């Protein structure tokens, strides 16, 4: 455990923050500009994982394990979310033979 912590601490904290911010922004932009449901899904995963990374980094630097516990929670949650989300995408595909997210326009009032 100590070795992992020290390994993490080799890289300065600022770099982790920067990397997470970049990954998160890529995720956001991906969600915003892509219309393929799978890609949007992957972008969401990207956002989640950027947060995970940040949590791990902070946890290591402050010597508090609860941050890493949180990461496991988020992973479990993300897995569940993926299961539901992919099921929705499969249904969308079966109904419309496409996974273009704009098809969901039809769901408005």
């Amino acid at each position, binding site marked *: 455990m100590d070795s992992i912590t020290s390994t993490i601490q080799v890289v300065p904290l600022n770099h982790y923050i920067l990397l997470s911010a970049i990954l998160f922004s890529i995720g956001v932009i991906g969600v*915003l500009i892509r219309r393929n449901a799978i890609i949007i899904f992957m972008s969401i995963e990207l956002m989640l994982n950027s947060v995970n990374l940040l949590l791990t980094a902070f946890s290591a630097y402050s010597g508090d394990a609860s941050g890493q516990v949180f990461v496991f929670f988020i992973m479990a949650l993300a897995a569940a979310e993926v299961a539901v989300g992919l099921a929705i995408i499969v249904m969308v595909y079966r109904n419309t033979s496409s996974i273009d*997210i704009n098809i969901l326009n039809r769901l*408005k009032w």
Partner: protein
Amino acid sequence: MIDLVWLIPLFPFIGFLICGLGRNILPKAAIGIIASLAVLASFAVSLGIFFEFNGSTPAIIHLFDWIKVGNIDIPFSFQIDQLSILMLLIITGIGSLIHIYSTGYMSHDKGFGKFFSYLNLFIFFMLLLVLGSNYVIMFIGWEGVGLCSYLLIGFWYTNGAYADAAKKAFIMNRIGDLGFLIGVFLIITTFGSVSFAQIFPQAQGMVSGDATLTLITILLFVGAVGKSAQLPLFTWLPDAMAGPTPVSALIHAATMVTAGIYMIARSNILFTLSPVTMSIIAVIGLATAIVAAIIALTQTDIKKVLAYSTVSQLGYMFLGLGVGAYTGAFFHVLTHAFFKALLFLGAGSVIHAISDEQDMRKMGGLKKKLPITFFTMLMGTLAISGLPPFAGFFSKDEILAHVYEENKILWIIGVLGAMLTAFYMFRMMFLTFWGNFRGSEEQKHHLHESPVSMTIPLIILAILSVVGGFIGVPEVLGGGHWLSHYLAPVFDASTSRLSVIELSHVTEYMLMGISVAGVVIAIIYAYVKYVKNSHVPLADSEERSVLAKISYNKFYFDELYSAIIQKPLNVISEFFYKIVDKAGIDGFVNGLGKGSMEASKGLRLLQTGNVGFYIFAMVIGVLGILIYSFFKF
């Protein structure tokens, strides 16, 4: 027997239920008999109580506790004393005669069952009014008779004018009722009770002229003004003649309109202790008596003449109350009930005979065709004119004698009013029964004496009009004045406080002589004008002299009320309806609705269904919050 008093109002109420519910099922004869029997049964019980009761203190029959809130205790109980017994006899006695009469009079009407159920309901409420042992029960009866009066005036409601007359009566009564109601509230705050038995002893301990007492009595008098058709609220009574004639006889002559006098006589001690109110009552009573008598001089509708005569006679009763002649005023209530019911029923008989014609200009010469009606009406006319020994002479004379003690000027005006009474009553008799028939050939062919069911009540009432006065023959004429002894327990507290100036016998003879002479002169003048010179009132289109015009148009009271109350009220209502309600309140409420509709229409466009846009909005929002919190700290 006294314990059975609750039966008295119960009989008419049961009659009302049977006639009302069975109006389409029961045959007409059964309805007539049931309704009449119900009132007759009440009359029988009343008679029993009359003969049994001889206490000097009122008997209170407690039926059940009604309202008990805090310190206020309003039991549902009846009070039996001399005053209520006499009223009971008048209401049920004359009421049953009029019921019997109505079975004949209304026999051709298709609202027969409805008519009798209303009539029974009226009797029920009127009995409640006089039996109640507190002001609240009296008020129930007071409102109830007003309701029945409304229903019966508008009995032929398909005629718009009749329905309007009913509304007019109802609204005018409402003005008075408000006064009465506020008076009762004031009584509760002052005396902490509404029961007569608790209020009057307390009041006896108060000083004469007490401000609260004066206010209470004025408010109660306002109620009486509305119900008993005095100036300035009298205009509903003549219009109330729109109802069937038996209704006019029962409600608008014999019973309901005397409720105001009953109420004041009942509360006599309160009024005695308020000299200011007494003066107001006397002046208003006399003014009403004169104004109504002047209007009656030129009316051409036979029922209108009688209606104004009723208003005028009620004025005399209030004049009597105002000068402290409680017995005299009540005596006049009694005799007036006899002869005015008789006159109305007689007029009804005439109208019935002449195919529903009410205009006296189209009558005349009915003496031979309707002998019984003629003779009985003549008795009634003599009685109302105040010729001895008919009933009206004694009661009117008693009032006028008291007025003379109080104020000579009022007395002179009162005697003038009596002369006017004699003149217009005989004018009516001469126009109707003397001379030649002026109606159409068809009406002439149809003329007939009324059926027995109508003539018998006429005959009974005629007998009462002749002998009814003998219950109150004054000492000066060798009588014992049974009535004043009988009523003494009720008015004791008041009479001991009023200063009584004993008139010498010579003065009393002189007063009687003058009024009788005046009446005789008036009758002779009417005879010369309408029989000798066969004068017939002008048609509506012809030009009248100024004075006749004022009288014929009822002093323009209706026009005056229309100008100073109705029109401004309409303008204000219009303003409130159009500006405040429609534009203001409705505008605000509808504006709120419209505003949110419009706002939604705009905001709706935001929900495009484009998920990308939603996420974009969310990101912008998150960024906004971040930037805000960044700059905030």
